[in-house]
């Protein structure tokens, strides 16, 4: 028994230390996985080691002096991605029993050096709230990301990020936008939560995982200049169309005033574009740049119908202009090119003809040079309205005063049923 104890102390105290040195040397060449395998093969007694530790830590009620649980579920740990590791592969300072009450903090980066270096400099890099376990869960229950039990399994990623980035989470504490609920109500969120689509964009599809950068960082995939490429990694055809259009070309040439995907679709609350809610919210977005076009659109029946809600069918900007491959009207491929107007208007107005498409969807009744006929029609109507009302308002007020005066003065002399 004593021999066995001495042997195990020697075995675990010395051999892994040697291997650890080796591991440190090999870590930079990125083959720590291989080291783990080596360890597995070279150390047939590892299960024995877990069993030794679990003799105490297998007790699920075990707590340290601070009342924190220091119990380990051996079964789950055995199934986890680190299940083949000996306890002191991570808890390196513990060489035997009895061991110190305060073991040295486990450093994931001693094996996961690439991830650790990616994390450094990311938005989560400096935060004390974000050790690896914030996202990956307790070190003893980490599963591969292809395993549905993993916190970073695609379908679980939003929930994992949402523990902080939601209304009641750390978002509030740090003044971050509460994006989790917006995402969950978005088309991506629905695809993920309702359909369980593994390919649906989750947080890390756009933001990356370890090396998440602020969108203000030019290297960030969510930086405005990189958005088309980021979205285009899934939406390839739309990205092609977009890059052919004036907006895509402007962004490519460095004009950051031009809209990218998220300017119209938003980043997290992305809606199905045919949805009434999206059709209601989108026109002002185009109008935030194209102000004169929005104001002339507002004067038309299309807008008047559309702004009341519940009637999303009326023409919005992109119904006529196209959405992604935005081309100037002079381009023969543009849906608002003269040659294409009958077809474009005809999408809604059955029977649209050449005369019908003379209608100007952005006419300005106040512009005498641009729309003279409309200008004078409006002027005539305004004068008619103003003069009729002015005359009759004066007429009626005078009449009221006079009739009341007569009524009071002559009591009943003015006749009438109330006299």
């Amino acid at each position, binding site marked *: 028994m004593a021999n066995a104890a001495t042997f195990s102390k020697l075995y675990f105290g010395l051999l892994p230390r040697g291997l650890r040195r080796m591991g440190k040397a090999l870590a930079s060449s990125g083959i720590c996985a291989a080291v783990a395998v080596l360890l597995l093969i070279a150390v047939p007694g590892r299960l024995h080691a877990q069993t030794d530790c679990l003799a105490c830590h297998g007790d699920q009620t075990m707590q340290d002096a601070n009342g924190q649980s220091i119990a380990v579920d051996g079964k789950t740990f055995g199934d986890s991605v680190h299940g083949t590791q000996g306890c002191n592969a991570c808890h390196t300072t513990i060489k035997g029993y009895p061991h110190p009450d305060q073991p040295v903090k486990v450093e994931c980066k001693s094996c996961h050096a690439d991830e650790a270096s990616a994390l450094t400099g990311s938005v989560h890099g400096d935060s004390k709230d974000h050790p690896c376990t914030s996202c990956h869960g307790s070190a003893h229950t980490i599963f591969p990301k292809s395993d549905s039990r993993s916190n970073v399994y695609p379908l679980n990623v939003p929930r994992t990020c949402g523990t902080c980035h939601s209304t009641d989470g750390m978002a509030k504490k740090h003044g971050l936008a509460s994006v989790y609920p917006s995402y969950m109500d978005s088309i991506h969120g629905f695809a993920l939560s309702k359909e369980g689509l593994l390919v649906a964009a989750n947080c890390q599809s756009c933001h990356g995982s370890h090396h998440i950068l602020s969108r203000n960082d030019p290297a960030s995939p969510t930086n405005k200049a990189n958005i088309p490429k980021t979205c285009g990694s899934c939406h390839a055809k739309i990205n092609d169309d977009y890059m052919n259009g004036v907006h895509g070309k402007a962004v490519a040439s460095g004009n950051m005033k031009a809209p990218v995907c998220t300017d119209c679709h938003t980043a997290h609350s992305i809606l199905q574009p045919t949805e009434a809610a999206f059709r209601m919210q989108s026109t002002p977005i185009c109008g935030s740049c194209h102000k004169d076009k929005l104001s002339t659109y507002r004067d038309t029946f299309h807008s008047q119908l559309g702004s009341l809600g519940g009637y999303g069918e009326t023409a919005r900007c992109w119904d006529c202009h196209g959405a992604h491959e935005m081309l100037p009207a002079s381009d023969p491929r543009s849906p608002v090119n003269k040659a294409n107007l009958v077809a474009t208007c005809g999408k809604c*107005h059955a029977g649209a003809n050449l005369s019908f498409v003379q209608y100007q969807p952005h006419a300005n009744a106040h512009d005498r040079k641009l729309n003279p*006929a409309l200008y004078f029609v409006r002027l005539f109507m305004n004068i008619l309205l103003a003069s009729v*009302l002015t005359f009759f*308002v004066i007429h009626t007020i005078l009449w009221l005063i006079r009739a009341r005066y007569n009524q009071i003065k002559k009591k009943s002399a003015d006749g009438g049923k109330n006299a």
Partner: protein
Amino acid sequence: MPDLELAAAIPTKAGGRFFTRFTRQQRYMHAVLFSTFLGLAGTGLPLRFSESIWARGLAKGVGGFGAILFFHKFCAVVLTIAFLIHVKEIFQRGIANRDFGVFWGPNSMVANWKDAKDLFGHLRWFVGLGPRPKFDRYAYWEKFDYWAVFWGMIVIGFSGYAMWFAPFFAHFLPGWALNAVLVIHSEEGLLAILFIFSIHFVNTHLRPDSFPMDMVVFTGVESEEEFAHKRPLEYERLKREGKLEARLGEAPQTWLINFSRVVGTIAIVIGLTLLVLTLTAYFS
């Protein structure tokens, strides 16, 4: 007991005579006209001021925009039919029956020299510069009301149908006209709404002579003293010609007065509400 109250509400002395002013058909026409007009105004205003706070609420209230458009078109069709019936009546009376009184004379809606004199005389009376003019069957402001509605229905109706069936109208209207019809429709509609709900309401119903409403368009009859006071020329002419008795009508039934009061009050309240909404939207 309610009978007594209602009897007291009838605006005449006991035993007074009543004279017919409007035929049953004219009263029905007015009822159709004002109910469809209220419908058109109530559904048209949210469109005209679609950016205002109440527009979306009102649209939601009647079942979304689809419902508003449906009601607007429905009222428009009913009013168009009423208008066509009226035009047919005029032609029948004036041309087929050779009743030229439709086109001129005291029973015609066509303006004449006396109307111009009455207008100036009335204005002078307002400011105390002359006697109150004596009016005949239709006073100048009543003729103005009539023609305003007549012209309004043609203009608003035509521009409305041009928008409803735009591709069809495009066959014979120039391109700019399709833009103009919306301006015309909304401005003329706005004029009609502002005019009816302020000027017509006050001139015809709310002025001291008729306050709170002139019941003659609902009951068809008015008391002798009201007749003699409001339209002395017609009253004296009929008396002189011995035709007064031919116009004698029956005192209105209490239920009709009661019913008319309710309907009239609802119409006036809706109208004034829409007027306030219009003015707030217009000046905000």
